[in-house]
Protein backbone atom coordinates (compact mmCIF):
# COMPACT_ATOMS: atom_id res chain seq x y z
CA UNK A 1 0.00 0.00 0.00
CA UNK A 2 2.82 2.39 -0.87
CA UNK A 3 0.65 4.44 -3.14
CA UNK A 4 -2.85 4.36 -1.73
CA UNK A 5 -4.71 6.97 -3.72
CA UNK A 6 -8.41 6.27 -3.58
CA UNK A 7 -10.85 7.61 -6.12
CA UNK A 8 -13.59 9.58 -4.40
CA UNK A 9 -15.89 11.00 -7.05
CA UNK A 10 -16.09 13.15 -10.13
CA UNK A 11 -15.14 16.81 -9.64
CA UNK A 12 -18.65 17.90 -10.45
CA UNK A 13 -20.12 15.77 -7.70
CA UNK A 14 -19.06 18.52 -5.28
CA UNK A 15 -20.40 22.03 -5.74
CA UNK A 16 -18.07 24.94 -5.40
CA UNK A 17 -17.74 25.98 -1.74
CA UNK A 18 -19.31 22.75 -0.59
CA UNK A 19 -18.53 19.41 0.99
CA UNK A 20 -19.54 15.78 0.62
CA UNK A 21 -19.18 12.74 2.81
CA UNK A 22 -16.96 9.87 1.66
CA UNK A 23 -16.84 6.54 3.47
CA UNK A 24 -13.94 4.19 2.86
CA UNK A 25 -12.34 1.30 4.71
CA UNK A 26 -14.56 1.68 7.76
CA UNK A 27 -13.74 5.36 8.09
CA UNK A 28 -15.54 8.48 7.05
CA UNK A 29 -14.00 11.52 5.37
CA UNK A 30 -15.18 14.95 4.31
CA UNK A 31 -14.14 16.12 0.84
CA UNK A 32 -14.31 19.85 0.10
CA UNK A 33 -14.27 22.04 -2.96
CA UNK A 34 -13.17 25.58 -2.14
CA UNK A 35 -14.45 28.79 -3.75
CA UNK A 36 -11.09 28.91 -5.60
CA UNK A 37 -11.86 25.48 -7.04
CA UNK A 38 -9.26 23.57 -5.04
CA UNK A 39 -10.06 20.23 -3.40
CA UNK A 40 -9.33 19.21 0.19
CA UNK A 41 -9.99 16.31 2.52
CA UNK A 42 -10.29 15.91 6.29
CA UNK A 43 -11.57 13.37 8.74
CA UNK A 44 -15.31 13.20 8.36
CA UNK A 45 -16.23 13.52 12.01
CA UNK A 46 -16.07 16.60 14.21
CA UNK A 47 -13.50 16.40 17.01
CA UNK A 48 -16.02 17.65 19.60
CA UNK A 49 -18.67 14.97 19.31
CA UNK A 50 -18.60 12.50 16.47
CA UNK A 51 -20.82 14.41 14.07
CA UNK A 52 -20.58 14.22 10.27
CA UNK A 53 -19.07 17.48 9.09
CA UNK A 54 -20.49 16.96 5.60
CA UNK A 55 -23.87 18.11 6.97
CA UNK A 56 -22.26 21.42 7.85
CA UNK A 57 -21.83 24.63 5.94
CA UNK A 58 -18.70 25.60 3.99
CA UNK A 59 -17.95 29.32 3.92
CA UNK A 60 -14.67 30.36 2.28
CA UNK A 61 -11.95 28.27 3.97
CA UNK A 62 -14.00 27.05 6.92
CA UNK A 63 -16.40 24.23 7.60
CA UNK A 64 -18.86 24.79 10.40
CA UNK A 65 -19.98 21.75 12.32
CA UNK A 66 -23.75 21.27 12.07
CA UNK A 67 -24.09 20.38 15.74
CA UNK A 68 -22.63 23.16 17.88
CA UNK A 69 -21.12 25.33 15.17
CA UNK A 70 -17.50 24.54 15.96
CA UNK A 71 -15.38 25.70 13.02
CA UNK A 72 -12.33 24.27 11.27
CA UNK A 73 -10.11 25.53 8.50
CA UNK A 74 -10.57 22.58 6.16
CA UNK A 75 -7.36 23.36 4.28
CA UNK A 76 -5.18 22.96 7.37
CA UNK A 77 -7.52 21.13 9.74
CA UNK A 78 -7.02 23.80 12.37
CA UNK A 79 -9.82 24.26 14.91
CA UNK A 80 -10.78 27.93 14.60
CA UNK A 81 -14.03 28.33 16.51
CA UNK A 82 -15.32 27.13 19.90
CA UNK A 83 -16.35 24.67 21.15
CA UNK A 84 -13.88 22.64 19.10
CA UNK A 85 -10.29 22.70 20.30
CA UNK A 86 -8.79 19.58 18.72
CA UNK A 87 -7.61 19.96 15.13
CA UNK A 88 -8.95 17.79 12.32
CA UNK A 89 -6.68 15.44 10.47
CA UNK A 90 -6.24 16.37 6.81
CA UNK A 91 -5.40 14.13 3.85
CA UNK A 92 -3.67 14.79 0.54
CA UNK A 93 -5.99 15.24 -2.43
CA UNK A 94 -5.30 15.20 -6.16
CA UNK A 95 -7.44 15.75 -9.21
CA UNK A 96 -6.77 13.70 -12.31
CA UNK A 97 -8.90 14.49 -15.29
CA UNK A 98 -12.38 14.76 -13.93
CA UNK A 99 -11.81 12.60 -10.86
CA UNK A 100 -10.88 13.46 -7.28
CA UNK A 101 -8.54 11.17 -5.31
CA UNK A 102 -7.47 11.16 -1.67
CA UNK A 103 -4.52 9.46 -0.04
CA UNK A 104 -5.69 7.84 3.16
CA UNK A 105 -2.70 5.82 4.30
Amino acid at each position, binding site marked *: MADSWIEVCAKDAIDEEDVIRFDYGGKTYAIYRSPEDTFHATDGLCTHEK*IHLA*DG*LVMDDTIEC*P*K*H*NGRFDYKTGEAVG*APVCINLKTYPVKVEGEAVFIKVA
Partner: protein
Amino acid sequence: MNAGIVIIGAGECGARAAFVLREYGYEEPITLIGSEAHPPYERPPLSKSQGASAPVVVAPRDKYASERIDLRTSCTVTRIDPDLQLVHFAEGDPIKYDKLLLTTGATPRMLRGISPASKRILPMRTFEHALGIKCLLGPTRRTIIVGGGFIGLEVGAMARAAGTEVVILETQSRVLTRGVPQTIADTLVERHRQEGVRFECGIQIEAVRETDDAVEVELADGRTLTADSLVVGIGVVPNTQLAEAAGLVIDNGIAVNELLETSAANIYAAGDCCSFPSAIYDGRRVRLESWRNTQDQGIHAAKMLLGKPDTLASVPWMWSDQYDLTLQVAGLADGSERSVVRNYEDGSRIIFHLGADGRLLAASGIGVGNSIARDMKLSEMLIAARAEPDPDHLSDPSFKLKSILPR
Protein backbone atom coordinates in the same frame (compact mmCIF):
# COMPACT_ATOMS: atom_id res chain seq x y z
CA MET B 1 -1.63 44.43 42.38
CA ASN B 2 -5.08 45.17 41.00
CA ALA B 3 -8.11 43.33 42.30
CA GLY B 4 -8.86 42.20 38.75
CA ILE B 5 -12.03 40.70 37.42
CA VAL B 6 -14.34 38.57 39.53
CA ILE B 7 -16.88 36.33 37.81
CA ILE B 8 -19.79 34.95 39.85
CA GLY B 9 -21.27 31.80 38.35
CA ALA B 10 -19.01 29.03 37.08
CA GLY B 11 -21.24 27.77 34.29
CA GLU B 12 -20.44 27.77 30.60
CA CYS B 13 -20.88 31.49 30.31
CA GLY B 14 -18.53 32.41 33.14
CA ALA B 15 -15.91 29.92 32.02
CA ARG B 16 -16.01 31.13 28.44
CA ALA B 17 -15.60 34.74 29.58
CA ALA B 18 -12.64 33.85 31.82
CA PHE B 19 -10.72 32.04 29.07
CA VAL B 20 -11.47 34.70 26.48
CA LEU B 21 -10.18 37.42 28.82
CA ARG B 22 -6.83 35.63 28.81
CA GLU B 23 -6.98 35.09 25.05
CA TYR B 24 -7.28 38.86 24.67
CA GLY B 25 -4.19 39.33 26.79
CA TYR B 26 -5.74 40.41 30.08
CA GLU B 27 -2.98 40.02 32.70
CA GLU B 28 -4.66 40.92 36.02
CA PRO B 29 -6.18 38.37 38.39
CA ILE B 30 -9.34 36.52 37.33
CA THR B 31 -11.46 34.82 39.98
CA LEU B 32 -14.24 32.48 38.87
CA ILE B 33 -16.63 31.50 41.64
CA GLY B 34 -19.23 28.76 41.45
CA SER B 35 -21.49 27.12 43.99
CA GLU B 36 -21.38 23.74 42.27
CA ALA B 37 -18.69 21.19 43.14
CA HIS B 38 -17.57 20.59 39.55
CA PRO B 39 -15.55 22.84 37.31
CA PRO B 40 -17.84 24.39 34.65
CA TYR B 41 -19.46 21.62 32.62
CA GLU B 42 -21.70 21.21 29.64
CA ARG B 43 -25.42 21.21 30.05
CA PRO B 44 -27.43 19.11 29.26
CA PRO B 45 -25.57 17.24 31.98
CA LEU B 46 -26.25 13.76 30.65
CA SER B 47 -26.58 12.57 27.13
CA LYS B 48 -26.21 9.14 25.67
CA SER B 49 -22.71 9.88 24.50
CA GLN B 50 -21.56 10.73 28.02
CA GLY B 51 -20.49 8.46 30.82
CA ALA B 52 -22.33 8.89 34.08
CA SER B 53 -19.40 9.10 36.45
CA ALA B 54 -18.45 12.71 35.87
CA PRO B 55 -19.83 15.62 33.88
CA VAL B 56 -18.26 16.69 30.59
CA VAL B 57 -16.26 19.71 31.65
CA VAL B 58 -15.59 22.80 29.57
CA ALA B 59 -11.90 22.46 30.49
CA PRO B 60 -9.96 20.32 32.97
CA ARG B 61 -9.01 21.94 36.27
CA ASP B 62 -5.34 22.31 35.40
CA LYS B 63 -6.27 24.47 32.42
CA TYR B 64 -7.63 27.05 34.90
CA ALA B 65 -4.41 26.91 36.82
CA SER B 66 -2.25 27.28 33.74
CA GLU B 67 -4.35 30.22 32.58
CA ARG B 68 -4.07 31.74 36.07
CA ILE B 69 -7.81 31.65 36.60
CA ASP B 70 -8.57 31.25 40.30
CA LEU B 71 -11.45 28.76 40.06
CA ARG B 72 -13.30 28.40 43.36
CA THR B 73 -15.89 25.64 43.28
CA SER B 74 -18.38 24.73 46.05
CA CYS B 75 -18.24 28.41 46.90
CA THR B 76 -21.35 30.57 47.05
CA VAL B 77 -21.41 34.35 46.96
CA THR B 78 -23.89 35.68 49.50
CA ARG B 79 -23.75 39.40 48.80
CA ILE B 80 -22.18 41.97 46.55
CA ASP B 81 -21.39 45.53 47.56
CA PRO B 82 -21.30 47.77 44.47
CA ASP B 83 -20.08 50.83 46.42
CA LEU B 84 -17.03 49.21 47.99
CA GLN B 85 -16.69 46.78 45.04
CA LEU B 86 -16.68 43.74 47.29
CA VAL B 87 -17.95 40.20 46.99
CA HIS B 88 -18.98 38.46 50.22
CA PHE B 89 -19.15 34.78 51.12
CA ALA B 90 -20.90 32.89 53.91
CA GLU B 91 -17.50 32.33 55.49
CA GLY B 92 -14.14 33.98 55.07
CA ASP B 93 -13.06 37.43 53.98
CA PRO B 94 -14.76 39.30 51.17
CA ILE B 95 -12.76 39.88 47.99
CA LYS B 96 -12.42 43.06 46.00
CA TYR B 97 -13.03 43.50 42.29
CA ASP B 98 -12.18 46.12 39.69
CA LYS B 99 -14.90 44.72 37.48
CA LEU B 100 -17.53 42.15 38.25
CA LEU B 101 -19.31 39.81 35.85
CA LEU B 102 -22.51 38.08 36.91
CA THR B 103 -23.11 34.78 35.11
CA THR B 104 -25.34 33.27 37.74
CA GLY B 105 -27.58 31.41 35.29
CA ALA B 106 -31.00 30.17 36.20
CA THR B 107 -32.67 27.83 38.68
CA PRO B 108 -35.40 25.40 37.68
CA ARG B 109 -38.85 26.08 39.08
CA MET B 110 -40.00 23.46 41.57
CA LEU B 111 -43.46 22.26 42.41
CA ARG B 112 -44.80 24.01 45.48
CA GLY B 113 -44.24 22.20 48.75
CA ILE B 114 -41.61 19.76 47.47
CA SER B 115 -38.38 19.56 49.43
CA PRO B 116 -35.29 20.39 47.41
CA ALA B 117 -33.74 17.32 49.06
CA SER B 118 -36.31 14.98 47.54
CA LYS B 119 -34.75 11.87 46.01
CA ARG B 120 -37.65 11.05 43.72
CA ILE B 121 -38.94 14.45 42.64
CA LEU B 122 -36.28 16.29 40.72
CA PRO B 123 -35.80 19.07 38.25
CA MET B 124 -33.16 18.71 35.53
CA ARG B 125 -30.39 21.25 35.54
CA THR B 126 -27.30 20.00 37.32
CA PHE B 127 -25.19 16.90 36.98
CA GLU B 128 -26.53 15.70 40.34
CA HIS B 129 -30.10 16.07 39.08
CA ALA B 130 -29.24 14.04 36.01
CA LEU B 131 -27.63 11.30 38.10
CA GLY B 132 -30.57 11.26 40.48
CA ILE B 133 -33.05 10.95 37.63
CA LYS B 134 -31.01 8.35 35.81
CA CYS B 135 -30.80 5.96 38.73
CA LEU B 136 -34.61 5.85 38.91
CA LEU B 137 -35.02 4.92 35.25
CA GLY B 138 -35.12 1.44 33.78
CA PRO B 139 -37.30 -1.22 32.16
CA THR B 140 -39.46 -1.93 35.19
CA ARG B 141 -39.68 1.70 36.22
CA ARG B 142 -42.19 4.40 35.66
CA THR B 143 -41.66 8.17 35.57
CA ILE B 144 -44.00 11.11 35.48
CA ILE B 145 -42.77 14.25 33.80
CA VAL B 146 -44.49 17.48 34.72
CA GLY B 147 -44.22 20.04 31.92
CA GLY B 148 -44.21 19.45 28.18
CA GLY B 149 -41.48 21.89 27.23
CA PHE B 150 -38.08 21.12 25.76
CA ILE B 151 -36.60 19.80 28.99
CA GLY B 152 -39.64 17.62 29.68
CA LEU B 153 -39.61 16.11 26.21
CA GLU B 154 -35.86 15.55 26.21
CA VAL B 155 -35.98 13.82 29.56
CA GLY B 156 -38.94 11.82 28.24
CA ALA B 157 -36.88 10.60 25.30
CA MET B 158 -33.98 9.73 27.57
CA ALA B 159 -36.27 7.83 29.95
CA ARG B 160 -37.82 5.86 27.10
CA ALA B 161 -34.38 5.00 25.79
CA ALA B 162 -33.70 3.47 29.20
CA GLY B 163 -36.91 1.45 28.87
CA THR B 164 -38.90 3.45 31.42
CA GLU B 165 -42.65 3.90 31.17
CA VAL B 166 -43.21 7.63 30.63
CA VAL B 167 -46.21 9.91 31.07
CA ILE B 168 -45.90 13.63 30.39
CA LEU B 169 -48.35 15.94 32.15
CA GLU B 170 -49.08 19.35 30.68
CA THR B 171 -51.56 21.92 31.96
CA GLN B 172 -51.96 23.59 28.55
CA SER B 173 -53.99 21.96 25.79
CA ARG B 174 -50.82 20.89 23.96
CA VAL B 175 -47.10 20.54 24.62
CA LEU B 176 -44.38 22.91 23.38
CA THR B 177 -46.64 25.93 23.28
CA ARG B 178 -43.59 28.13 23.64
CA GLY B 179 -41.22 28.63 20.79
CA VAL B 180 -42.17 26.23 18.02
CA PRO B 181 -44.93 26.18 15.40
CA GLN B 182 -47.79 23.79 15.99
CA THR B 183 -46.96 21.44 13.13
CA ILE B 184 -43.42 20.94 14.39
CA ALA B 185 -44.70 20.27 17.89
CA ASP B 186 -47.11 17.74 16.35
CA THR B 187 -44.26 15.91 14.62
CA LEU B 188 -42.39 15.62 17.91
CA VAL B 189 -45.45 14.47 19.83
CA GLU B 190 -46.21 11.88 17.18
CA ARG B 191 -42.66 10.59 17.46
CA HIS B 192 -42.87 10.39 21.24
CA ARG B 193 -46.16 8.49 20.95
CA GLN B 194 -44.55 5.99 18.58
CA GLU B 195 -41.88 5.47 21.20
CA GLY B 196 -44.57 4.79 23.76
CA VAL B 197 -44.73 8.06 25.67
CA ARG B 198 -48.16 8.93 27.01
CA PHE B 199 -49.33 12.55 27.06
CA GLU B 200 -51.93 14.00 29.37
CA CYS B 201 -52.63 17.57 28.29
CA GLY B 202 -55.02 20.07 29.82
CA ILE B 203 -54.74 18.47 33.27
CA GLN B 204 -54.57 20.10 36.70
CA ILE B 205 -52.41 18.71 39.46
CA GLU B 206 -54.09 18.79 42.85
CA ALA B 207 -51.35 17.28 44.98
CA VAL B 208 -48.01 15.54 44.75
CA ARG B 209 -46.93 13.11 47.48
CA GLU B 210 -43.72 11.23 48.00
CA THR B 211 -43.62 7.95 49.90
CA ASP B 212 -40.63 5.75 50.69
CA ASP B 213 -40.73 4.00 47.37
CA ALA B 214 -43.04 5.98 45.09
CA VAL B 215 -44.44 9.31 43.97
CA GLU B 216 -48.18 9.93 43.76
CA VAL B 217 -49.80 12.63 41.69
CA GLU B 218 -53.41 13.47 42.35
CA LEU B 219 -55.18 15.07 39.39
CA ALA B 220 -58.17 17.41 39.51
CA ASP B 221 -60.23 14.87 37.57
CA GLY B 222 -59.94 12.48 40.51
CA ARG B 223 -57.29 10.13 39.14
CA THR B 224 -54.11 9.31 41.01
CA LEU B 225 -50.96 8.44 39.07
CA THR B 226 -48.05 6.66 40.70
CA ALA B 227 -44.47 6.32 39.57
CA ASP B 228 -40.95 5.69 40.80
CA SER B 229 -39.88 9.22 39.99
CA LEU B 230 -41.19 12.59 38.94
CA VAL B 231 -39.25 15.06 36.85
CA VAL B 232 -40.23 18.71 37.02
CA GLY B 233 -39.74 20.58 33.75
CA ILE B 234 -41.75 23.74 34.26
CA GLY B 235 -39.21 26.35 33.34
CA VAL B 236 -36.45 28.23 35.04
CA VAL B 237 -36.13 31.53 36.85
CA PRO B 238 -33.06 33.71 36.35
CA ASN B 239 -30.77 33.94 39.38
CA THR B 240 -31.14 37.64 40.12
CA GLN B 241 -31.09 37.54 43.94
CA LEU B 242 -27.56 38.92 44.39
CA ALA B 243 -28.17 41.66 41.85
CA GLU B 244 -31.54 42.54 43.28
CA ALA B 245 -30.24 42.80 46.83
CA ALA B 246 -27.47 45.08 45.57
CA GLY B 247 -30.05 47.39 44.02
CA LEU B 248 -29.41 46.58 40.37
CA VAL B 249 -32.24 47.02 37.89
CA ILE B 250 -34.08 43.76 37.21
CA ASP B 251 -36.34 43.30 34.20
CA ASN B 252 -37.05 39.63 33.49
CA GLY B 253 -33.46 38.93 34.54
CA ILE B 254 -30.60 41.27 35.40
CA ALA B 255 -31.12 44.14 32.98
CA VAL B 256 -28.07 44.99 30.86
CA ASN B 257 -27.51 47.32 27.90
CA GLU B 258 -25.85 46.33 24.63
CA LEU B 259 -22.46 46.61 26.36
CA LEU B 260 -23.70 44.05 28.93
CA GLU B 261 -23.44 46.73 31.65
CA THR B 262 -25.90 46.50 34.50
CA SER B 263 -27.28 49.61 36.18
CA ALA B 264 -24.33 49.58 38.64
CA ALA B 265 -20.88 50.85 37.73
CA ASN B 266 -18.32 48.16 36.86
CA ILE B 267 -20.86 45.33 37.07
CA TYR B 268 -21.75 43.34 33.96
CA ALA B 269 -24.02 40.35 33.41
CA ALA B 270 -24.30 37.67 30.72
CA GLY B 271 -25.95 34.35 29.93
CA ASP B 272 -29.22 32.90 31.20
CA CYS B 273 -29.39 35.38 34.10
CA CYS B 274 -29.68 38.58 32.06
CA SER B 275 -32.08 40.35 29.75
CA PHE B 276 -30.60 42.46 26.98
CA PRO B 277 -31.66 44.57 24.02
CA SER B 278 -31.40 42.35 20.94
CA ALA B 279 -29.51 44.24 18.23
CA ILE B 280 -31.02 42.32 15.35
CA TYR B 281 -34.56 42.85 16.62
CA ASP B 282 -34.23 46.60 16.95
CA GLY B 283 -33.49 46.62 20.63
CA ARG B 284 -36.34 44.39 21.77
CA ARG B 285 -35.47 43.26 25.32
CA VAL B 286 -35.10 39.50 25.56
CA ARG B 287 -33.72 36.89 27.91
CA LEU B 288 -32.52 33.69 26.28
CA GLU B 289 -31.96 30.29 27.82
CA SER B 290 -29.80 28.73 25.22
CA TRP B 291 -26.39 27.26 24.93
CA ARG B 292 -25.30 29.36 21.96
CA ASN B 293 -26.36 32.61 23.56
CA THR B 294 -24.42 31.73 26.67
CA GLN B 295 -21.29 31.11 24.62
CA ASP B 296 -21.69 34.26 22.55
CA GLN B 297 -22.41 36.44 25.54
CA GLY B 298 -19.51 34.95 27.49
CA ILE B 299 -17.18 35.99 24.70
CA HIS B 300 -18.88 39.35 24.33
CA ALA B 301 -18.65 39.94 28.08
CA ALA B 302 -14.88 39.47 27.96
CA LYS B 303 -14.65 42.08 25.21
CA MET B 304 -16.90 44.51 27.09
CA LEU B 305 -14.92 44.07 30.32
CA LEU B 306 -11.82 45.04 28.37
CA GLY B 307 -13.54 47.96 26.66
CA LYS B 308 -13.15 46.51 23.17
CA PRO B 309 -15.64 48.01 20.73
CA ASP B 310 -17.99 45.40 19.29
CA THR B 311 -21.67 44.74 18.92
CA LEU B 312 -23.25 41.38 19.53
CA ALA B 313 -25.63 40.83 16.66
CA SER B 314 -26.01 37.08 16.87
CA VAL B 315 -29.33 35.50 16.09
CA PRO B 316 -30.99 33.58 18.93
CA TRP B 317 -30.58 29.91 18.15
CA MET B 318 -31.29 26.67 19.94
CA TRP B 319 -31.61 23.02 19.22
CA SER B 320 -33.14 20.00 20.87
CA ASP B 321 -32.33 16.33 20.22
CA GLN B 322 -35.08 13.80 20.76
CA TYR B 323 -34.60 10.22 19.57
CA ASP B 324 -33.13 10.56 16.08
CA LEU B 325 -34.87 13.89 15.51
CA THR B 326 -33.22 17.26 15.81
CA LEU B 327 -35.20 20.43 16.16
CA GLN B 328 -33.65 23.82 15.61
CA VAL B 329 -35.06 27.28 16.07
CA ALA B 330 -33.30 30.39 14.80
CA GLY B 331 -34.54 33.90 15.44
CA LEU B 332 -37.54 35.14 17.37
CA ALA B 333 -40.99 34.87 15.92
CA ASP B 334 -43.52 37.23 17.43
CA GLY B 335 -46.60 35.37 16.38
CA SER B 336 -48.06 37.88 13.93
CA GLU B 337 -46.03 36.92 10.93
CA ARG B 338 -46.71 34.97 7.78
CA SER B 339 -45.22 31.51 7.53
CA VAL B 340 -43.81 29.59 4.59
CA VAL B 341 -43.05 25.87 4.70
CA ARG B 342 -40.15 24.13 3.01
CA ASN B 343 -40.70 20.37 2.83
CA TYR B 344 -37.74 18.15 2.00
CA GLU B 345 -37.91 14.79 0.29
CA ASP B 346 -36.79 12.92 3.40
CA GLY B 347 -39.69 14.30 5.44
CA SER B 348 -37.74 17.00 7.21
CA ARG B 349 -39.13 20.51 7.15
CA ILE B 350 -38.36 24.12 7.88
CA ILE B 351 -40.98 26.74 8.64
CA PHE B 352 -39.98 30.31 7.89
CA HIS B 353 -41.60 33.29 9.55
CA LEU B 354 -41.70 36.53 7.61
CA GLY B 355 -42.61 39.91 9.04
CA ALA B 356 -45.22 42.19 7.46
CA ASP B 357 -42.40 43.97 5.64
CA GLY B 358 -41.17 40.70 4.15
CA ARG B 359 -38.15 40.43 6.42
CA LEU B 360 -37.18 36.92 7.51
CA LEU B 361 -37.61 36.94 11.31
CA ALA B 362 -37.32 33.32 12.34
CA ALA B 363 -37.08 29.75 11.14
CA SER B 364 -37.89 26.46 12.86
CA GLY B 365 -36.81 23.16 11.43
CA ILE B 366 -37.11 19.48 12.24
CA GLY B 367 -35.46 16.49 10.67
CA VAL B 368 -33.57 13.30 11.26
CA GLY B 369 -30.03 13.88 12.50
CA ASN B 370 -28.43 16.97 11.04
CA SER B 371 -30.40 16.94 7.80
CA ILE B 372 -31.69 20.49 8.24
CA ALA B 373 -28.54 21.88 9.84
CA ARG B 374 -27.09 23.51 6.77
CA ASP B 375 -30.27 25.26 5.66
CA MET B 376 -30.96 26.31 9.25
CA LYS B 377 -27.50 27.85 9.41
CA LEU B 378 -28.17 29.71 6.16
CA SER B 379 -31.56 30.83 7.51
CA GLU B 380 -29.82 32.20 10.55
CA MET B 381 -27.42 34.14 8.32
CA LEU B 382 -30.32 35.47 6.28
CA ILE B 383 -32.06 36.58 9.46
CA ALA B 384 -28.90 38.34 10.61
CA ALA B 385 -28.59 40.02 7.22
CA ARG B 386 -32.18 41.29 7.52
CA ALA B 387 -32.89 39.62 4.20
CA GLU B 388 -36.29 39.75 2.56
CA PRO B 389 -36.24 36.46 0.67
CA ASP B 390 -38.78 35.55 -1.99
CA PRO B 391 -41.29 33.17 -0.34
CA ASP B 392 -41.26 31.01 -3.47
CA HIS B 393 -37.55 30.47 -3.01
CA LEU B 394 -38.02 29.56 0.62
CA SER B 395 -40.69 26.98 -0.10
CA ASP B 396 -38.65 25.29 -2.85
CA PRO B 397 -36.29 22.71 -1.28
CA SER B 398 -34.14 22.56 -4.42
CA PHE B 399 -33.49 26.30 -4.32
CA LYS B 400 -30.06 27.01 -2.81
CA LEU B 401 -30.46 29.43 0.08
CA LYS B 402 -26.76 30.17 -0.12
CA SER B 403 -27.31 31.91 -3.45
CA ILE B 404 -29.36 34.70 -1.87
CA LEU B 405 -26.99 35.34 0.99
CA PRO B 406 -25.60 38.86 0.71
CA ARG B 407 -21.78 38.64 0.78
